[in-house]
């Protein structure tokens, strides 16, 4: 079975009913998606499937077909942070960090979907399935709104190996 992870085609030997989270972590050693509850309740394993946020613990790999899977590694690395990553870091939106990557992916999908500034209500809706036990959400919500306004939105050099996530729009 073939999967496309962060723009790279990968072959998996796992059975079609294996959760995407298990395949990412144990077969491909992509560990940014975290096992928090493994029953769809906490959001820590959230990745994008064709740009939409999905719980990797609930997605059977056999259902993916040609879909493109994006993890936080596909947004940016330490030297090439995407705007949403810059915002989370600069605004202290991560405390222990365990829920962070899932939140970042959900936020990216929200910003991509609205194509511009997001409202607080939209952020709360997008994060409603995400649990953070450390920070109390305020800084997370603020970071996402700031990223959506373009405050951190300096574009990166286009990388053809990266997925088509509109992660770094120019400031409005």
């Amino acid at each position, binding site marked *: 079975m073939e999967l496309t992870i962060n723009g790279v085609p990968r072959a998996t030997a796992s059975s079609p009913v294996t959760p995407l989270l298990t395949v990412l972590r144990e077969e491909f050693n992509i*560990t940014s998606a*975290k096992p*928090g509850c493994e*029953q769809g309740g906490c959001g820590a394993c959230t990745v994008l499937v064709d740009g939409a946020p999905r719980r990797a613990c609930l997605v059977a790999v056999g259902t993916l077909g040609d879909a493109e899977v994006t993890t936080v590694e596909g947004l940016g690395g330490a030297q090439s*942070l995407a705007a949403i*990553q810059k915002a989370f870091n600069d605004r202290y939106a991560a405390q222990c*960090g*365990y829920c962070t990557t899932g939140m970042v992916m959900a936020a990216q999908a929200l910003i991509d979907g609205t194509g511009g500034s997001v409202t607080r209500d939209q952020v709360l809706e997008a994060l409603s399935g995400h649990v953070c*036990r450390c920070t109390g959400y305020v800084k997370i919500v603020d970071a996402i709104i700031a990223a959506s306004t373009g405050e951190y939105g300096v574009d990166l050099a286009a990388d053809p190996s990266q997925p088509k996530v509109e992660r770094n729009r120019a400031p409005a």
Partner: protein
Amino acid sequence: MKAVGAKLPRYDGIAHVTGRTNFVADLTAPGMLQARVLRSPHHHATIRSVDTSRAEKLRGVRAVVTHTDVPKNVYGHLEALGVPADEPLLAEDVVRWKGQPIVAVAAEDVDTAMEALELIDVDYDERPALFDIRLAFEPDAPEIHHWGPVFPHFGPHNHRRVRKGDVESAFEKADSIVSGVYRPQAIEHCPLETQAALVIPEADGRLTIHSCTQAMYFSLGVVAAHLGLALNRIKLVGGTVGGGFGGKVDTASETISAVLALKAERPVKWRWTREEEFLASSTRAPWHIELEDAVTSDGWILGRRMVTLHDSGAYSRFSPYGLTKHAFHHTGAYTIPNLKFDGFVVYTNRVPTTAMRGFGVTSVSMAVETHITRVADVLGLDPWEIRLKNANRIGDTTGNLVAMQDPSTVPVTLATAEKVGKELAAEYRTMNSERRSGGLLPEHLVAQQAPEGAHVLDKAGAAHGSHGTGTGNGGGH
């Protein structure tokens, strides 16, 4: 002081936002096995027999361990202070809480380990269980430990005591006596990262342990004690904690993983499921607090009597320490000259309880602050004024007779009043923390006041007319 007020980057911020932070769950080691643990399905039961033979024969199982595989199975957090141990790493002849580990398995993968658990035969004889600390002292209460219903090692007492002044006479002199019962309940810490450890037995006999612990050196000591190893035989790697809040102070996963790794001679990883985290990880303790204040009609607190029952769950762990903090804080941020406090660490057939954000203190603060407002309601006085009047001031003494050098009750209360727009009369608005004198030093507060420059009152209080005997000593740390 350059850092104060400055915006400093988090040293781990970039790693968090790029998924580069390695939690224990993310780590692997060559040849790594996966662990699962058979937990008690009963709240309280005698174990008649344990048969692991079928599990051991299952293909892919590399180690099955019971209490007989643990060099020192029963350990106590307070042993270094001479307090006997009360908790087995793996249950022996009795299980005392639903979820208590009995047998651990290491296998090539999680599915095999889980299958092995189903092949273990345990014969239980169920016993009555106790869940309500208020019933622990009843003659027909279920016996959890043979030494009795409470942790008995507080120096010469079986409970934590505070005695100050003459509480009986304070209650005789009181215009009113206001009593209340407060029962804060258990809370699960619920960190996003469940308990996890990876133990690698090195070729030279040492153990490398990757742990999610909040308390590195504490966990090091606990593992070494159970295994009978010198501290320098263990390398503990930690510092990356996916949420703890006190729940990762207990050494929850490292020791059992280490016993398995030593037996299998392979690295062993044990990551708890979310279900295990909720059912079997320690919680904040439930408490039962009975509080009684002797008060004057103009709002002075002359004396306080308090009895606290601290639900320790099935074993003591850190509860004696938490109760001691609770005892110290039982006057809140206020000076009360006559005190009688008795606090008990009570066993129940619940999951053992532990630290959580303000261990032992949040419970007593909730009770005390609620109670002061209740006192104000009964007396028909302003609760802000009662707080400011009885607030700690320089030279006032705590329950254990330590003189306060820099108490913050008055400035914090005034700042809070300002923030919420509370109007105070001038005599309260202009208060400060200076030593009591004049109208703020009524007769009942004279004896408790330490002389200028003194750090502690004489334990007998003789020099200054107090009849207290100080706090109970020994025990809980």
